[in-house]
């Protein structure tokens, strides 16, 4: 470790003489942009929190095209920024190329595992968070039918749906879960019109709570649910405020915590795989003034108990990506 520190000191001096920032952390936002009301904005929030609390500064860039990934990584690494945080699974390939060339720089990638000695891979247990909001849906539903609308049909989104269905059935074993995917191409992340129609189709099948894990498509789902006077569940960031009193809750993915922790650790950040689950507040559910009236004390107590059980390991939520099957839902 002392050797490492000396070495880092040496590179820092080099970096200083080159007029670059002294081991400031850097963050790269994905194509959605840092004000996407969701994933990237959450990452930005974590970085801002770190800067406000420590008085430090960080370098940042918003990508404009896929081709810039490797270029942005190399630029920050050459400038001596450490650690370099990147938000999004799409950086996987570029980081695999770059990581080996800068063995003294620590990289933090969110939502993806990259196997290199100087990379910290942060992954989230989305199935656990989805399980919790699924329980709320199961308890809030009067019809006994709830819906799930996924974006692009990929294993990650099935992981959301599978956890959700398990939670619904845990709260109400007789409940029916209607699941639809928006599509099989990336266009499925930005088709709110189809999201709306899927919501209406699920309503006609009796659904009165709909969970959207579909990026921009979810905007249409939440809108139509509010227009039709049924409840919806948001995803990633807290989306309760979009339609106050009509969004039951949101499945929180605390990307901000992941970024905050990485920046706080600085160049000494621990590499390897870092799993963010219910236990370390990596995922959870949102309760604020906008949805307080929708959550009864019994619901809150049941979900809090389930979260505690997941945290101490007495309740295990099946992860779809572990074996590509789901006990509670067929896709």
């Amino acid at each position, binding site marked *: 470790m002392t050797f490492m520190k000396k070495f880092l000191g040496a590179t820092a001096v080099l970096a200083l003489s080159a007029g670059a920032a002294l081991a400031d952390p850097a963050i790269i936002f994905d194509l959605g942009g840092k*004000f996407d009301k969701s994933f990237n904005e959450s990452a930005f929030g974590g970085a801002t929190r770190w800067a406000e609390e420590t008085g430090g500064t960080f370098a940042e860039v918003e990508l404009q095209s896929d081709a810039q990934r490797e270029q942005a990584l190399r630029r920050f690494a050459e400038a001596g920024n450490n650690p370099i945080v990147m938000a999004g699974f799409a950086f996987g390939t570029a980081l695999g190329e770059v990581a080996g060339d800068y063995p003294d720089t620590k990289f933090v990638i969110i939502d993806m595992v990259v196997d290199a000695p100087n990379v910290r891979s942060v992954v989230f247990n989305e199935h656990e968070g989805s399980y919790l909001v699924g329980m709320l849906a199961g308890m809030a539903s009067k019809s006994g039918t709830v819906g799930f609308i996924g974006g692009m049909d990929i294993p990650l989104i099935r992981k959301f749906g599978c956890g959700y269905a398990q939670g619904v059935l845990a709260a109400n074993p007789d409940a029916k879960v209607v699941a*639809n995917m928006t599509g099989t191409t990336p266009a499925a992340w*930005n088709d709110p019109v*189809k999201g709306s129609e899927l919501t209406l189709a699920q309503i*006609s099948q009796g659904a009165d709570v709909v969970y959207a894990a579909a990026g921009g498509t979810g905007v249409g789902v939440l*809108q139509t649910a509010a227009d039709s006077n049924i409840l919806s569940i948001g995803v990633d960031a807290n989306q309760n405020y979009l339609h106050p009193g009509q969004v039951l809750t949101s499945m929180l993915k605390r990307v901000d915590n992941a970024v905050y922790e990485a920046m706080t650790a600085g160049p000494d950040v621990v590499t390897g795989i870092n799993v963010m689950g219910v236990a370390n507040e990596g995922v959870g559910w949102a309760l604020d003034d906008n949805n307080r009236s929708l959550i009864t004390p019994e619901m809150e107590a049941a979900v809090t108990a389930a979260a505690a059980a997941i945290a101490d390991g007495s309740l295990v939520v099946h992860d779809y990506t572990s074996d590509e099957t789901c006990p509670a839902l067929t896709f």
Partner: protein
Amino acid sequence: MDLMTLLQLLDSSVRLATPLLLACLAGLFSERAGIFDIGLEGKMLVAAFVSAGVAYVSGNVWVGLLAGIGASLVLSGIHGLASISFRGNQLISGVAINFLAAGLTVVVAQSWFGEGGRTPQLAGAARFDPITLPGAEAMRDVPVIGPIYYELISGHTILVYVALLLVPLTAWLLFSTRFGLRLRAVGENPAALDTAGVSVVRMRFAAVAICGVLCGIAGAYLSTALQAGFVKDMTAGRGYIALAALIFAKWRPWYALMACMLFGFLQALSLRPDLLETALHFKIQVQLLDALPYILTVVILAGFVGKAIPPRAGGEPYVKER
């Protein structure tokens, strides 16, 4: 399948078919005049963004609609300038418009609203609300006809009825007026029209402008009637499906209505895989239904079912003297 389920399915078909129909009629005017238009998608996208943005700022959806039509007309003007005045390649110009629209909407939305390429959610008078036709509430309890009238025919936004009325209007304009005759002639044999003393350039610009107006309505329908705001790339390939519908309809307005309704129905059906499974007793892949409009178009193009002959002068810039 009971009547209510069927009606909900058809209701969904009408909503999904409307943007296709508007874009399809837009393409019909343009292509009948000999200007191929790949850029329907881009024009719809820009109109969707501008109408949502202006509707949000002004709080009035009609102002938004006009602004959306205006934005679509600007792109139409660019397409006309490139392909009519400068005799450029119409396909390349159309593709350029699509790229321009995809990028520009997000960039402008970001600098205007700072919400990651979206517009804020629209509410109240900034949105088109569904209208209940007269007598729909009263007739609701009449068996069979009541639900059909209440669920299927009534309860859409005004733009749906506008789109449906545009079909007979287009048919009349194209086949019963002097303007329509000239418009079709300019797409078949512009030299003959020129000989008769009619300006080819003016006719083609008129057609491209009508195309712009219709694309503008289609885009505004997406962002202010079906949705309450703009999301990047929200047209999601509808402009291309409309082009497929246009070929499927063999460039005729009534057939265009049928083709768009069919494609809308297929899209609505793909949202309800459970219905198909109970009806057919085996699981059918949703992707197959999504691809069906394109497959049908290829079948038509291959000449298995009738023959689709495009306007003869389509795609060729008109040169007075060779």
